[in-house]
Every structure is written in structure tokens, then in C-alpha cells.
């Protein structure tokens, strides 16, 4: 038995109060008798004259003490515990990319499933099992469940293409052993292809590492990057191919652009050697893929894909009465196509996914990302006025919006004084308030430049287009370009009504307001489409809002040599914690009511 609120036992002190009332004498009642001759000296004189006396044991006192004891015990919340007798097996399945290696049939992950199933099959009905899938994010597939449920969870598990987070998985396993389900033991089924993990400091159960795999033959695309020169020249690419095996390999590498072959090279790679490739993409190339024609043990890293920077249109709607300065700066950015709209025509205009408001701001922000420049009063922002030549420029140097920019050189000229909204954080500010802010509201991202660029020195500074380029990146455009590493979160386009992400594992709905997508565990192509506001499903004829490519590009996972990992010894108590079986508070309170009734009955009898 254990107590849920042991502090309530302090109420037992009331029993001392009751005893004190019985010990202390109140004023004696004077009773006349015919003669005190026979009474004199009958009680011990000292005892009779003292102001206290030993408590006389009566049924009333016993009932009162029992009542206090029972109520205090009930308040303490006693719980009868189920005697621990079983085991609590915590299975950690490594679901990282290297577990897809086929050096054991059908794969390392399949072998891990088989071994795990064997362990679970050996459990008794009194035992419990927890199954944790150690993918990009650890996830429990069964929690202190029966052997049957654990077996089903193991069979239903699937490997991933991303690096695994074994540290987090072990922390989750340690938490599982804290469950009062039996004597805990952790089994890690893995190839050990990960850096030595930082184990939780206190593992309350022994950890057994079961190594899986025996081969190391693997040639992988370890890196793939595309860059568009600032001068507008053709996009160039860089790739690195590494042989992680102990044997030399000759691997044909085939480069395609938008699905069309561009170049094929035969790479002679010694054991552990790498080959770096550079290439120039044809103009207008949107996607690039590097495919290694090999049949090594791990196929996931034999291919890498990337989207060219500025691939496709970057449509921007500029709402401004004097659009010259901003339009010129925006058009200088790669892929940006600017459509100018006069403020008077804003109400009926078709807006791009990114709207730049210059000297104009409607009362409600549109369902699009926005860059607000020099906002006037009466719009969606609480503008209080303007300040000429503000002083005391300060800024947050860690904010990505200021990458490669020195705001100390800013001469703002005329700053808009506004009350910062609660969804925005200041990035640059002066003595008169924030000058640059950023934030997200209702699934859209907003950058505010609270000054008039025409009255500042920014148009003459190189920092101005950089600031706009950084703003576009902060709005998520850059996230979806190039290549996305498996398991990495990607910013989504403005999501005011819900979206659907189609990837190699199928379609997944993203609720409205969620601006990032993290389930990128499988390599391949992902597209983002608007979802139906009512059903949430993607409209069949809707054009994709965005697209991104996910590749492994993780040398640590491509190095598939099996490695034994030393597991930490248990530092916690090996004693299993029994499971709560029956709360006794209710029964005790019923007993207290019965005692109280008996007390009243006893009192009513004249005792």
C-alpha cells in the first residue's frame, strides 16, 4: 500500500488535541455529599488535585480517535498496490536510415523486428512490453501493453530514411521503466551506426544492446548543393560521393536535370575515399538528381535530389503608390516576379502568396505572407505617428533577418511609431520603438519595416536588397529550395485554411495555422497543396503551393559498419514499482461516516 498525499497525515495531530482535551481538567463540578468521610483520600490526592490526568479509556474516546485516524488516512489517499511479479520489457527499435541495409535478410530493421518478436514471445501474461521506434523522432508504438499488443506494434513498425534520435528514444525508454508495470529491462536493437549517444543520467533498468548487421559495403551521395551566382549566371552544383565500405568500388554517377540526363561519370572510389563533383546546370533547371548506379547494402543514400534556387516563379504583389524603389530591389532577387498594384485597386486585385505593402495597409491582413513597409495609421497595425531622425539604433544580431547586415549603418530618416503586436518580436529598434519586426499570425508570416525607405539611406546601401532577401528566406521561400535533409522540418506556405502534404509515405493533412512540416523521414519528393476548408482533403485540380525534395545526405548514417555500443549500467533502483490496484479513500470515508454515527449513538445513550 502507498499514500498519494502523505502530507495529509498531519491531520493525525488532531488526535493529540482530542487526547489533550481528555487530559486537561476543566473546572470541577461541585457536588454536595452527606459526608466526605468515606470519600476522603479515595483518589490519590496529588493526582486528583492536578490540572491534568491520564486519559481514561472510554469507548467515546476510542471512537473519536478512530474517526480522526480514519479521516486522516482517507485524506492521505491510500492505494493498494498490485504486487509486482512480472517483467516490463522495453524494446527500442532503431528505425534510422542505416537499418534499411540489406546485409541481413530482409533488412537490418526486419531482423530487429524478428529478434524483438522473439523477446516478446518469451513474456508471460503477467509481463508488460513497451515498444519504442527510434526514428527521427522517438515514438512509442505500445506502452506497458500486453505481449500480444507489443507483438502487433513490432510487426507494424516501419523503418525510416532519416537519422535516428536514439538519445531521445533511450530517455523515453527510461521513462517507461518508471511505470509501475513490473521489473524493467531495456533492449536496444540497433546496428550501432550512430555517434555514442548521451544517455540519460539515470536509467532505472538494465540496458541490453543487441547489435544487428555485419556488412559495410555502401557508396553514398554524402552532399549535394546548388548555388545561383548573384550576377545571374547559370546555377552551379556541388556533390560529394563517398565509399564507406572497406573495399574499393567503381560506381557510375548519373546526373539528371528535370529528369533529363545531363552527365554520367564513373567514379573509382577506394575504401573510405570520396569524390567531389561540380557541375553547371542548364538554364531554367528546376530540379537536379544525382543517382549512383550501384547495388550496395543501403539504397537510400544512392540518390539525392535538390531544387534549384529560384526555381520557378516567386510571385510577389507590391501594393504601393510609389513602387519604384521597392520594385527595383525585389526584381533584383532571383526568381522574383513583381506585380504592382495601386492601393486604390487593392480590393479587387488577385494577390500573390507574398504581398508587399508599401505606404499602405488594409485593416485586415490578406491570407498571404506579407512584408509591410512604412505602414500608415488606420491599417492592421496600431500606428501612433512618425518620428524624424530616430536615434539609438539597436538590434538583435542573432536574428537571421539581419544575416550579413550591419543595422548600425542605418539612417532611418523617418520612423513609424507603432504599438508592436503581441505576435511580433522586434529585430531592430530605436529609442522611439521597433523599426523592424517579424512574427507569424494565423498561419501567415509577416515582416514589418517600420520606416520609409525613401527617407532613409537604405536604397543606397547594399544591405537593402540583402534585407529583402533575408525577409524572403524568413518567409520560408529558401527552406524549400536546395535539398532538405531527411527528418528536417520545412516551413510551409501561408496556411490559413489547412493544407495537404503529399510525400513518399502518402498524403498528410496539415491543420490551418500550422506553418511547418516535420514528417520528412522518407526521402523523395513532397508537394504542398491547399486543403479543402471543410474536408481538409487536397483539391484534385489545385496547383501545388510548394514543392521540396528530401534526401538522406547524412554521412554518419551512410557509414553502416555495425558497431557495438556500450550501454550504461542501471543507476536507479532495480526494485520494480508495483502498480496501483485499489484506491481505499472512498472505503475509509465510509468507515468514518460509520464511526461518526456510532459516536453519536454512544453520546445519545448518555455516555
Amino acid at each position, binding site marked *: 500500500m502507498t499514500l498519494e498525499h502523505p502530507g495529509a497525515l498531519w491531520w493525525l495531530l488532531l488526535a493529540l488535541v482530542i487526547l489533550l482535551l481528555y487530559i486537561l481538567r476543566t473546572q470541577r463540578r*461541585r457536588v454536595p455529599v*452527606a459526608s466526605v468521610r468515606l470519600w476522603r483520600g479515595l483518589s490519590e490526592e496529588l493526582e486528583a488535585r492536578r490540572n491534568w490526568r491520564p486519559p481514561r479509556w472510554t469507548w467515546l474516546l476510542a471512537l473519536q480517535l478512530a474517526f480522526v485516524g480514519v479521516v486522516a488516512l482517507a485524506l492521505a489517499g491510500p492505494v493498494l498496490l498490485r504486487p509486482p511479479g512480472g517483467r516490463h520489457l522495453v524494446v527500442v527499435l532503431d528505425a534510422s536510415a542505416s537499418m534499411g541495409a540489406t546485409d541481413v535478410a530482409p533488412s537490418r530493421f526486419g531482423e530487429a523486428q524478428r529478434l524483438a518478436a522473439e523477446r516478446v514471445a518469451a513474456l508471460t501474461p503477467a509481463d508488460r512490453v513497451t515498444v519504442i521506434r527510434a526514428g527521427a523522432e522517438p515514438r512509442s508504438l505500445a506502452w506497458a501493453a500486453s505481449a500480444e499488443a507489443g507483438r502487433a506494434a513490432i510487426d507494424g513498425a516501419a523503418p525510416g530514411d532519416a537519422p535516428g534520435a536514439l538519445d531521445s528514444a533511450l530517455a523515453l525508454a527510461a521513462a517507461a521503466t518508471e511505470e509501475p508495470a513490473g521489473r524493467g529491462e531495456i533492449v536496444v536493437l540497433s546496428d550501432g551506426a550512430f555517434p555514442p549517444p548521451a544517455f540519460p543520467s539515470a536509467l532505472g533498468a538494465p540496458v541490453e544492446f543487441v547489435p544487428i548487421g555485419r556488412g559495410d559495403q555502401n557508396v553514398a551521395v554524402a552532399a549535394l548543393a546548388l548555388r545561383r551566382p548573384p550576377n545571374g549566371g547559370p546555377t552551379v552544383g556541388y556533390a560529394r560521393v563517398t565509399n564507406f565500405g572497406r573495399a574499393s568500388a567503381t560506381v557510375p554517377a548519373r546526373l539528371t536535370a528535370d529528369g533529363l540526363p545531363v552527365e554520367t561519370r564513373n567514379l573509382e572510389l577506394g575504401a573510405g575515399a570520396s569524390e567531389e563533383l561540380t557541375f553547371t546546370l542548364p538554364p531554367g533547371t528546376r530540379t537536379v538528381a544525382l543517382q549512383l548506379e550501384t547495388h550496395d547494402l543501403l539504397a537510400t543514400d544512392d540518390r539525392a535530389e535538390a531544387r534549384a534556387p529560384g526555381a520557378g516563379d516567386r510571385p510577389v504583389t507590391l501594393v504601393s503608390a510609389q513602387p519604384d524603389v521597392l520594385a527595383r530591389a525585389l526584381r533584383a532577387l532571383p526568381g522574383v516576379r513583381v506585380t504592382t498594384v495601386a492601393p486604390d485597386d487593392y480590393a479587387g486585385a488577385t494577390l500573390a502568396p507574398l504581398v508587399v505593402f508599401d505606404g499602405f495597409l488594409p485593416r485586415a491582413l490578406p491570407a498571404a505572407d506579407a512584408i509591410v513597409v512604412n505602414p500608415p495609421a488606420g491599417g492592421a497595425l496600431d500606428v501612433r505617428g512618425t518620428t524624424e531622425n530616430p536615434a539609438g539604433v539597436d538590434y538583435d544580431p542573432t536574428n537571421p533577418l539581419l544575416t550579413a547586415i550591419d543595422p548600425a549603418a542605418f539612417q532611418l530618416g523617418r520612423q513609424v511609431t507603432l504599438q508592436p503586436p503581441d505576435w511580433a518580436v522586434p529585430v531592430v529598434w530605436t529609442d522611439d520603438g521597433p523599426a523592424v519586426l517579424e512574427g507569424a499570425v494565423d498561419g501567415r508570416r509577416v515582416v514589418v519595416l517600420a520606416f520609409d525607405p525613401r527617407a532613409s539611406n537604405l536604397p543606397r546601401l547594399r544591405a537593402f536588397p540583402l534585407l529583402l532577401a533575408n525577409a524572403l528566406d524568413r518567409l520560408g521561400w529558401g527552406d524549400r529550395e536546395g535539398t532538405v535533409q531527411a527528418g528536417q522540418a520545412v516551413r510551409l506556405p501561408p496556411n490559413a485554411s489547412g493544407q495537404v502534404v503529399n510525400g513518399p509515405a502518402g498524403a498528410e493533412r496539415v491543420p490551418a495555422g500550422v506553418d511547418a512540416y516535420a514528417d520528412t523521414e522518407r526521402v523523395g519528393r513532397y508537394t504542398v497543396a491547399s486543403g479543402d476548408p471543410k474536408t481538409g482533403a487536397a483539391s484534385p485540380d489545385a496547383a501545388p503551393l510548394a514543392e521540396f525534395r528530401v534526401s538522406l545526405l547524412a554521412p554518419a548514417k551512410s557509414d553502416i559498419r555495425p558497431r557495438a555500443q556500450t550501454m550504461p549500467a542501471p543507476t536507479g533502483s532495480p526494485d520494480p514499482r508495483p502498480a496501483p490496484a485499489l484506491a481505499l479513500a472512498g472505503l475509509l470515508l465510509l468507515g468514518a461516516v460509520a464511526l461518526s454515527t456510532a459516536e453519536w449513538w454512544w453520546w445519545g445513550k448518555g455516555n
Partner: protein
Amino acid sequence: MRLPVGLRRARDGAGGALVTRAAARLRPSLGLRPAAAPRTLVADEAFLRRLERLALALQRPPTTGLAGDHRSRRKNDAPEFADYRTYSPGDDFRRIDWKAYGRLGALYYRLGEAQEDLALHLLIDTSASMDYGTPNKLDYARQLAAALGYLALARLDAVGAGALAPRTPSLPVLRGKAQAGRLFAYLDGLGARNGSGAAAPLLESVRAYRRGTPRGVAVLLTDGFFPDEHAAGLGELLQAGFQPVLLHLLSPQELAPEMAGDLELIDVETGEPVPASLSPETLARYGERLTTWCGEMERYCAARRIPYVRLSTALPLEEAVLGELRRRGLLE
């Protein structure tokens, strides 16, 4: 129903306004507390008739030398006629007054034969401790004394009465049922001496009473709570030629107290406080001490052939007189 003259007067005096008027006259001179309301000591006529059939039965009854209902070893030199009483089976039917039978239709026995009367002295403890208990001990003592006195008067015995308290006038010796009213009035006027301090020693009270008083049977009606030892007073009576009889009266509250808890017991005579924590164990010890105390008194009396009867005031008066005292051989 028409009663003989003596009995009729006794009845009128005992049960009617005579007792109250006499008591009213006597109370101021006795220095006793006034009665709160007129009280009747013995009012049950049937009980009075049953009393008339009883007589004191003591082994060595000291006599006064005057005629009475107790047979004398001397020749009959008493007046021929003294009084009537109702006929009882066993009486000499030659002394039945047939004339009265002819007039009244009932048998009456003519008293006057040479008989010695028995001087009966009723000594009532009027200390404050007697004014205690339910039923009240003093009330019970007065009723019991009235019954015994009437019984003796009906047998033509001499009856005297007094209070076991100094400076309290005693009742001169009375004879004949006609004097029952005076006896009752005297008894009715006796009250507890509340607020007079400690009770008088028994020896002092006995000495004060026996001066000039004829010897006889001295019935002490008391609860026994004297400041001195009872032996001294009883011994004084024996030395003076009296036959003491001790009627030890205790109330139910003394025989089986129902008190509990922390109390301060106050002596009604002395005002002495005694703190006591009464538990069942304490009450048991009190009971043992009471038994011991009564036993000592009884053993003392038995050793000196002094009749001793302990009575609870919870016992009805008729049962005490007609039952307990007869069983103990004090009455026949």
C-alpha cells in the same frame, strides 16, 4: 367507621391538622427550620392498624416500673382498665369488651391488666448530613420514628423522643395512644440543622438526652456520620442502663453513587471540599470502604448485643417496619 376514643384521637392527631398545628407551636421553641409545607408522617389508616398488632420484641427490655403491654413478672396491681385496642387473634377473649361489641359490632380488647410498660426513646439524628438523599434520610427517620412511637403508644408503652443535637429540647415521656399527636407534632417539627457547622458528637448528645430520662430502649435513627466514634455514644447508653438499638439509615445515593468524572465533593456539614476523579474503579473502592465501615459498626453492636439494622431509604416504610424490622426480631 367509628374508632375507639384513643385510636380516634390518635388518628385525628396524626393524620389531620393537629400535627401541623402542634408542630407550628413547637418549631419556634425548638429552633428548627420551619417546614415548607404541612407533612403527614403516618397517614395510612390501614398501616396504623397493622402497627397496632405489633409490639417491640427485645430480649432484655428495661422497664419503667409502670403498667404496660409487656407482661410483668410482678403481681397485677395496675388499674383495671386503661384503654382499648382492637382484638387480635390469641388475645384473652375474657378481656373483650362485649358492650362495645354490642354498640359498635367490633371486638375491642380491654387493656388494664397488670403489665409493665416499655420506655421507648426515639433519638433522631438531625445533623445536616441527614438532610440528604432521595428519599430524604431525615424524612425517612421521622416517619420511621413515628411508626415505632405509635406502635409503642398503642401498647401503652412510654415513648420519649429527642434529637441527637445539643440544645434541642426533647419530648417528655408520653403514654397512651392519645399522646400520639404530640409525638407526631414533635417529630414533624424536627428539621436538619443546616448551617450550624459540624454535627454534634454522639456522646454529647446522648448525655444531654439521658439526664432525667427513664431507662428503656433507645432507638437511634442515624446515618452514622458523627464527628466522634459511635462506640462512645452507644457505650454511654449501655452504661446508663439503656438498651440501644441502631437503625442505620443510608440513602441510595450513598449506597450506590451514580457520580462520575472530575468533581469537587462538598461535605454538607463542614463544607470541606474533596477533589475526586470518579471512575468505576474509584466507585468500587468507595463501595468497599462503605462496606467496611458498616461492617465495623455492625460487629461492634453484635459484640454488645445491640440490635443493628441497616436500612436504605429506598425501602418503603411499610416494608421496613412490617418486613425488615420483624425479620430482624425487633418487632413481633
